[in-house]
């Protein structure tokens, strides 16, 4: 017990002493994760929202999630390297592949699950498809869409650690180099990754609050649980920690 406490203390000391290195690697880590997430959002959100709006492709949307969960991240990163060579973009692309499934599936389930009465009413008021999506479906689906984005964010930040073995940089550089930084460096960087993942999750949560229309803030909680239960009966609420282990 005391030994593990010493390691922990040494790790914190390492983080403080080597703060310039840590900050530099954290910046690389954020850049890589941010790039991957941004690309994943641009690809996955429109697809998921559109499929949900048309109530089509449930088979595709649900199975994409299962497929995505089954992909070993190291293998995906390795395949990315095989095609694009070692470096930032091959790793970023692999992370995009890993981040797209949860975003697509949640966006689909969220928009698909918006009460038909609300959509019918909007149509009756003369709204176009586009207006229905942006003014009715998206605001109501926001909590669940963001649940998917949060899962993807935590997963990407945690998995970006593995990028180090493929020359992608980031905090993983310290973790895989025990010979250079010692066990305290490994533990220190690991703590930084965990903190970073939780902080990113929190940041996306704040963004969600900011984007939720005031009128929906009160009910959003009830709405969220309602949809989650009907959407995935036997998938317990793992979304917040899902993928951290990678």
């Amino acid at each position, binding site marked *: 017990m005391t030994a593990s406490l010493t390691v922990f203390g040494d790790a914190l000391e390492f983080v403080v002493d080597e703060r310039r290195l840590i900050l530099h690697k954290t910046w690389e880590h954020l850049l890589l994760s941010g790039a991957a997430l941004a690309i994943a959002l641009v690809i996955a959100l429109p697809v998921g929202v559109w499929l949900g709006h048309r109530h089509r492709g449930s088979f595709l949307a649900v199975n994409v999630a299962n497929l995505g969960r089954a992909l070993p991240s190291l293998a995906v990163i390795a395949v990315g390297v095989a095609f694009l060579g070692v470096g930032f973009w091959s790793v970023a692309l692999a992370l995009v592949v890993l981040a797209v499934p949860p975003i697509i599936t949640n966006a689909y389930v969220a928009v698909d699950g918006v009460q038909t009465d609300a959509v019918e009413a909007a149509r009756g008021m003369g709204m176009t498809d586009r207006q229905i999506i942006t003014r009715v479906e998206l605001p109501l689906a926001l909590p669940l869409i963001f649940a998917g984005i949060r899962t993807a964010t935590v997963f990407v930040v945690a998995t970006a650690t593995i990028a180090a073995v493929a020359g992608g940089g980031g905090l993983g550089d310290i973790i895989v180099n025990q010979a250079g930084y010692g066990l305290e460096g490994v533990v220190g960087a690991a703590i930084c990754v965990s903190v970073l993942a939780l902080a990113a999750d929190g940041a996306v949560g704040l963004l969600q609050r900011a984007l939720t229309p005031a009128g929906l803030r009160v009910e959003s909680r009830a709405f969220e649980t309602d949809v989650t239960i009907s959407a995935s009966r036997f998938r317990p609420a793992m979304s917040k920690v899902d993928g951290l*282990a990678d």
Partner: protein
Amino acid sequence: MIPLGGPVAAQGPVIPDFGKGSDCVVENRLFCPDWVRDNWAGTLQPALLDHVKLTLIAVAIGFVLSFGAALLTHRLRLFEKPLVAFAAIVYTIPSLALFQLLVPVTGLTVATVEVALVGYTLLILYRNILEGLRSVPPDVLEAARGMGLTRGQTLWRIELPLAVPATMAGLRVAVVSTIALATVAALVIPQGLGYPIFLALREAFKTEILVAGALAVGLALVADALLVVAERALTPWNRARRVT
């Protein structure tokens, strides 16, 4: 390029030797079938089998532990919170770091890998089994009591069968994520599909990266599909309902 600890660093690059082999291997083209043929029996097949073995052992131990814990806390709710908290903390440690953290304790052995892999399965399996046991509707439990079943009989005949779908859902996630994490185990021991991936990444040898990576992905997909089939076989009542 990558300063790795453990056996990867100790043994250095074994394969590929760009100097020998066919033109395809020498030029490091995207995919060389002849290399795969030559190295299947010596490198790829053993790695695949080791990977399956690492995964099966980890999931089996994790399942037994989680099952026991779930049965215990199903009745004694007192222990649920601390157990979930412990499992959740283990779950948040990045795998690259956990393997290295355990090395001073258990050395560069299979035990190190298995302890870490088992640790990652606990949260998923425990939560799902417990949720399954709790998902049994109260009317069903009333009916069981009305029929004169004892608590033990209720558990074995009612609660456990009805917990199968949730348990299998957890098992799918656990197996698939263990297969993914076991690739990282190659940092510690020269076993599993991660080993050829790590070695090939150092040289950017495309064929080996691609084949070993594809084998890992394929293994995960096959395992997932097998568990879906197993779940259907174990829950005939769901199948019947689906038909009508």
